[in-house]
């Protein structure tokens, strides 16, 4: 099977879906030249006016998606960096997410908002955030965050086919991850978590790039005879708690790892839900791994200290492992 990166998976999914359905268009800043992250690479040539360069006007971009969807199209729009959602939260949260409900069900808004999140490139405080928790808090939105190239293609295809607004988050540090990705279109259902690695001692629920970090932590710990099970929710909302709870029932211990700021982050929801739903199985508190309480610093030395990584997962696991003889 051909090996592709996340950066390649995105335009491939878009291209295949756009070929299938003429109502799909893709709008955002600088898409003609591939977008800032290559997510529209090659699409302009094939789809012409259906790939639209917009002015730098994110409120209008997101609002355009709402109006066009309400009028029967299937917009995909890009907000280049996730940090920029601050300038168009109203359109996403008060309009896109709520229109269907406010109208008593009459509206159908098949919209995908793609955006790139995460730190790791010395892009500093306004180009490095992971703000998924904001969107998960809002009924009416679905939130997807794939952790590899295979999932990226399959989940993006599902997101485009979904009749609801979906926030589709690619992680910058994942863009060059490469994996076997089938050429033909395939759909991975939204709302289904995946056990990325089976294990028996501790469940690590990890999102986005933290899946890679969790795998590294699992490798390290395996050398010490500790077996991690790595669960990737893939869709953050709706969240597949069943898979997570089943894993914790097996391992009795859990660590939740996210890249965003830990306080009030998405990991808080998972940790709170695990202890609610699997309290009697837990032999130790659910530990969280997440970024410390500061904006993302610029300097590589500081950013590295800021970023949650495999080591932090190992440390969290060590805290809740039973004392060994």
């Amino acid at each position, binding site marked *: 099977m051909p090996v592709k990166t996340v950066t390649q998976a995105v335009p491939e999914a878009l291209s295949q879906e756009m070929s299938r359905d003429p109502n799909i268009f893709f709008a955002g800043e600088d898409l003609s030249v591939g977008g800032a992250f290559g997510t529209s690479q090659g699409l302009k040539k094939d789809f012409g006016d259906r790939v639209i360069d917009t002015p730098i006007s994110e409120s209008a971009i997101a609002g355009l998606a709402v109006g066009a969807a309400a009028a029967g199209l299937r917009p995909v729009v890009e907000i280049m960096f996730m940090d920029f959602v601050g300038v168009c939260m109203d359109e996403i949260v008060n309009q896109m997410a709520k229109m269907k409900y406010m109208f*008593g069900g009459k509206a159908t808004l098949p919209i995908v908002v793609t955006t790139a999140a995460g730190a790791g490139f010395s892009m500093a405080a306004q180009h490095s955030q992971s703000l998924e928790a904001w969107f998960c808090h809002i009924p009416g939105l679905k939130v997807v965050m794939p952790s590899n190239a295979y999932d990226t293609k399959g989940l993006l295809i599902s997101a485009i086919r979904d009749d609801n607004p979906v926030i589709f988050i690619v992680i910058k540090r994942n863009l060059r991850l490469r994996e076997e990705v089938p050429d033909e279109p395939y759909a991975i259902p939204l709302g289904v978590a995946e056990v990325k690695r089976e294990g028996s001692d501790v469940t690590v629920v990890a999102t986005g790039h933290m899946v890679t970090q969790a795998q590294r932590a699992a490798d390290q710990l395996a050398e010490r005879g500790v077996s991690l099970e790595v669960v990737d929710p893939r869709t953050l909302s709706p969240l597949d708690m069943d898979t997570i709870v089943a894993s914790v029932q097996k391992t009795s211990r859990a660590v939740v790892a996210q890249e965003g700021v830990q306080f009030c982050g998405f990991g808080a929801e998972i940790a709170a839900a695990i202890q609610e739903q699997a309290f009697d199985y837990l032999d130790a508190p659910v530990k969280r791994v997440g970024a410390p309480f500061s904006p993302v610093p610029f300097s590589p030395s500081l950013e590295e200290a800021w970023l949650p990584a495999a080591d932090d997962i190992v440390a969290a696991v060590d805290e809740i492992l039973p004392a060994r003889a």
Partner: protein
Amino acid sequence: MDIAHDTLRQMYERMVLLREFDERCGRLMQENRTKGAVHLYCGEEAVAVGVCTHLSNDDYITSTHRGHGHLLAKGGDPKFMYAELFGRSSGYCKGKGGSMHIADLDLGMLGANGIVGAGPPIALGAAFACHYRQDGNVAVCFFGDGASNEGTFHEAANMAGLFRVPLVLVCENNLYGEWTKQADHQPIDDIADRAASYDMPGVTVDGMDAFAVYEAAGEAIARARRGEGPTLLECKTYRYYDHVGVDFGKIVRDPDEVAAWKARDPLEQFPRRLMEMGAITQTEVDRITSETRARIEAAVDFAEASPVADPAFLLDDVYTPAAAEGAHV
């Protein structure tokens, strides 16, 4: 402009419907029979009706918090509207939206909106869809003088001017945003002047005069349908009641100002001119009024007789369920 007498009569009928609907709303609020924030359109009827007379159900409009008039002008049924205001499951939004979100997508009415300035980007999107499909339909965005200071207006206007989508931006300049006068919220008199920033025509008309609105809107809409792009149409108008409710905070405007505008009440000047033209008779005017009132009463009765929205359905309508497995594949 030569307007068919039938059209004029229909416009008048609509205007009476808008007025009577919101007058009744005001009384219902004062009687404490409806809840929530309701913004009355009384005084501004010539705008919605003058514009929407040019539109079919395949054309789109976006509205504001002051949305009853827009929905009625677009063909909304008072029955389902009152039912919505009463929070009944028979309402346009099953009681989930209320006055500030009243909508009927079947009529191309993309909703009243609780967020000032939310309309322009959404209307831009609807106009974009018409443009994308090249179907000859248009989108109209109603928004207030206050809303013309939100960044969303500017972003949407720029994009509309750039893409030349069939959008008409109708500014209902009623001289106030809540209790703040226009002169205290922007340093210009004619909001239509802002059109130049986006390479579109800007037109200011007397929004109390349904003829003037009809004519200017007709030109803008025809232009949009011809693919010649957007227009900014400013209608100077006035609201008769308080910003929200009837006399919400007892914050009063200058009585002379109110009287001067009421002297040009569209519900008086329009039928007077129709009678002068021989397009309508006093008897017809009286009949329209009494029939409309009866319709309004029947609609209120319908609403009150409808079942209250049932909490069993609270969590419905948040998401569109997935299509049957594999449907898309």
